[in-house]
């Protein structure tokens, strides 16, 4: 009993002492507003002062018309962005790229890094408590209500006029790629962010069919071009023991759930979801020729050419099947599958070879109608200037820096001589980055944020070197050879429409994914397909198509 009192009192004392120690709240670290008190220079005043500074030819080449430094007296801006490398960096100010940028522009950045996985929650809390930082990096396309709502909510401000006047480098992109202007504007023509941009196939395409090239060689087979070729090859994988162990234990085609089986339907010129055909929005699952695709898949499944457990396979089981001489072909990433698996298996099984094949077609000689491709404007990594920002013009200048020639090299490659060298005009990463395992994460992140996304133009040579494995690069080349124009551009339904659309689609997606699995696995006879389509119509798929169509029409008019 005495012991109990004693323990309790000791605990209480510790408690009180510790509270004193920790109770003093840390200094407010969101103090950017206090800095703004000291500089009372109006925007007009600073611009007249700037027009006399630093414009000579070499600067023009480096900075493309951007006048530096941006301000005479240093200012601080707050910048909300998740820290993607907390094991290497404590704050992004540790990255050389931002240090150099600060030196050149005179603007200091105070980063606000939410913990990994909590970016959306944190952002919503900041918005709800009216505590908006000056710059936010987020995906405006996934904001509830879309980019127009972002502007309406004053989370982002309109910047198209400011870009016109103060962002010469970014503006230049519209000359090189007119499509970009459409993608990053709202239907009303307003711009709201500085985006992460990709222009080259090696960046825009990164998924496709992958096949065990060594198995093809063992069986003296050629790369499949048509759907029939695939059928023959998969049957051969099943029957003719390509892994040479004397047992028919191969699973010809493996997949992580239906999504990785779905791309076969591209050969029929549609996707199972929304796609574009001659300016019209279509929904593949209700198109008549979709039934042909389903019956092909059903046949393949019934003959054991597709993993019988594909519908419940998770990524861990998939990794195992793909790397242990069981799986013959699958749909996957150029990096995460081809490069990763091949690098892994190099020591264990030098025969293991993966190759990416062209998307299959129905008739030999056709060009694949549809393949994986993302839009130039992906959405993620966009920098928004918020409604609390008191230095909008300076911020526009500051963000434009990334798109200038020097900024471009800085963001993608780092510092010449330290993280890359110019090899006959080709920026080549140093060996401790490119040739060391995890070099990109461990080393390059000290210089740039290239591994990740953010407000700059993604470098082509950077991406190629990041892909590293020649098989990955070759795969991307093969996968890129498709017709263009069928993938949905970043269209934005109106706020009301968007609510309606999402309600409809959640139910349709649920129903569709259930039924497609049933059709393919033989649990539902294919003559029920028409019932399936009419149920989809009852679930308002046509209303959904109309909503997307009007969004597309508005997009085309931007």
């Amino acid at each position, binding site marked *: 009993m005495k012991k109990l009192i004693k323990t309790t009192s000791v605990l209480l004392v510790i408690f009180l002492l510790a509270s004193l120690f920790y109770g003093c709240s840390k200094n407010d670290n969101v103090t950017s507003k206090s800095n703004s008190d000291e500089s009372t220079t109006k925007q007009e005043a600073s611009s007249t002062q700037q027009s006399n500074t630093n414009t000579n030819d070499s600067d023009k080449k480096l900075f493309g018309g951007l006048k530096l430094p941006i301000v005479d007296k240093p200012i601080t801006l707050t910048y909300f962005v998740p820290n993607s490398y907390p094991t290497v960096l404590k704050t992004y100010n540790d990255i050389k790229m931002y240090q150099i940028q600060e030196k050149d522009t005179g603007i200091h950045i105070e980063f606000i890094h939410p913990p990994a996985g909590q970016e959306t929650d944190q952002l919503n809390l900041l*918005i709800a408590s*009216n505590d908006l930082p000056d710059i936010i990096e987020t995906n405006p396309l996934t904001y509830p209500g879309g980019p127009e709502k972002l502007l309406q*909510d*004053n989370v982002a401000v309109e910047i198209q006029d400011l870009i016109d006047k103060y962002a010469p480098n970014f503006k230049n992109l519209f000359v090189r790629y007119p499509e970009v202007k459409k993608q990053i504007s709202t239907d009303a023509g307003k711009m709201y962010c500085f985006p992460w941009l990709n222009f080259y196939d090696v960046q825009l395409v990164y998924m496709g069919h992958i096949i065990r090239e060594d198995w093809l060689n063992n069986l003296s087979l050629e790369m499949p071009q048509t759907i029939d070729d695939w059928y023959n090859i998969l049957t051969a994988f099943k029957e003719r023991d390509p892994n040479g162990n004397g047992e028919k234990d191969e699973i010809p085609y493996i997949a992580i759930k239906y999504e990785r089986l779905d791309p076969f339907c591209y050969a029929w010129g549609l996707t199972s979801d929304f796609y574009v055909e001659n300016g019209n929005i279509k929904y593949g699952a209700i198109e008549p020729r979709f039934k042909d695709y389903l019956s092909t898949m059903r046949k393949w499944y019934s003959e054991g050419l597709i993993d019988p457990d594909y519908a419940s396979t*998770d990524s*861990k089981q998939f990794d195992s099947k793909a790397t242990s001489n069981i799986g013959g072909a699958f749909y996957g990433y150029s990096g995460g599958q081809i490069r990763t698996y091949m690098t892994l298996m190099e020591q264990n099984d030098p025969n293991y070879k993966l190759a990416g094949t062209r998307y299959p077609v129905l008739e030999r000689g056709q060009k694949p109608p549809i393949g994986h491709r993302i839009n130039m404007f992906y959405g993620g990594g966009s920098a928004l200037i918020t409604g609390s920002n008191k230095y909008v013009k300076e911020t526009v200048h500051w963000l434009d820096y990334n798109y200038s020639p020097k900024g471009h090299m800085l963001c993608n490659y780092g510092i010449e001589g330290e993280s890359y060298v110019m090899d006959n005009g080709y920026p080549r990463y140093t060996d401790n980055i490119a040739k060391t395992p995890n070099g990109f994460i461990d080393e390059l992140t000290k210089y740039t944020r290239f591994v990740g996304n953010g407000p700059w133009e993604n470098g082509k040579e950077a991406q190629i070197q990041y892909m590293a494995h020649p098989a990955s690069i070759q795969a991307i080349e093969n996968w890129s050879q498709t017709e263009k124009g069928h993938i949905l551009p970043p269209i934005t339904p109106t706020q009301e429409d968007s609510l309606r659309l999402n309600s409809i689609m959640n139910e349709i997606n649920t129903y569709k994914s*259930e039924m497609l699995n049933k059709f393919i*696995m033989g649990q539902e006879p294919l003559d029920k397909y028409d019932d399936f389509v009419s149920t989809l119509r009852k679930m308002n798929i046509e209303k959904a198509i109309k909503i997307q169509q009007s969004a597309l029409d508005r997009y085309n008019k931007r």
Partner: protein
Amino acid sequence: MIAFLKKQWSKNKYVYIMLIPVLLYYVLFCYVPMYGVTIAFKNFIPLKGILKSPWIGFQHFKSFFESYYFWRLIRNTLAINIYSLVIGFPAPIILALLLNEVRNTHYKRIVQTVSYLPHFVSIVIISGMILQFTSRNGLVNQSLSLFGLEKIPFMLRPEWFRTVFVFSGVWQNAGWNSIIYLAALSNISEEIYEASKIDGANRWRQVIYITIPGISSTIIILLILNIGSLMSVGFEKVILLYNPSIYETADVISSFVYRKGILEANFSYSAAVGLFNSIINFVLLMSSNYMSRKVSETSLW
């Protein structure tokens, strides 16, 4: 009236003093923010805050009730939870009773310590293991074929999902949940057992007439609390285990709302669904509390 209150105060002064910080906590951290519940009836605009966002009444609720899958989701949620209750509620009690019968203290402690370990393993890893065990070549099917039975692709058959879900829950949590019953068991005084032995009771009779009644209040309260979460199925485990081919039994309210949240983060909608669940849960709690009051001495109020 004043005299009555004064008497209360003088009789139970310290009790009320003890109660003050507790009530303060509830008022400040539970009731002050309670206005947030209204988000379910509004079209939430982050910048306006909850209070100033526009009212839309029952629109979200309507949208949920009119969903094509509404009844299926309710059915699946309730089915999983009732099944869990029937199997998963007695399991820790039985485990505690069995442990209680073990005479070797060391063995008792070892079993008890080991049995709660799975509770600490994250659901992500547990789910990975479940999928592995139930796969076509996994442990379960290999055992089945040893006995000459046909292999079953458990995660592709809707009729098996609930069983896998419930029994894996027992596996993971029975040990941890038995701890509170063990504590309740240790409160039963040895003297009663001694006395009953003198009266000639064997172990079985001791269990029925002493042990179980001795922990009955704990059992009843926990039962009431568990009935009060009948509408809540944690979405994380469901999402990790399910796939579209078994949506028929596996898709519950929380997983459906989660998928909707991926399409569009709509606080108000998920708040409305959550509110609906909470109301049903609370009603269930009140009913079971009422019934318990009628048949036993134990109840929440």
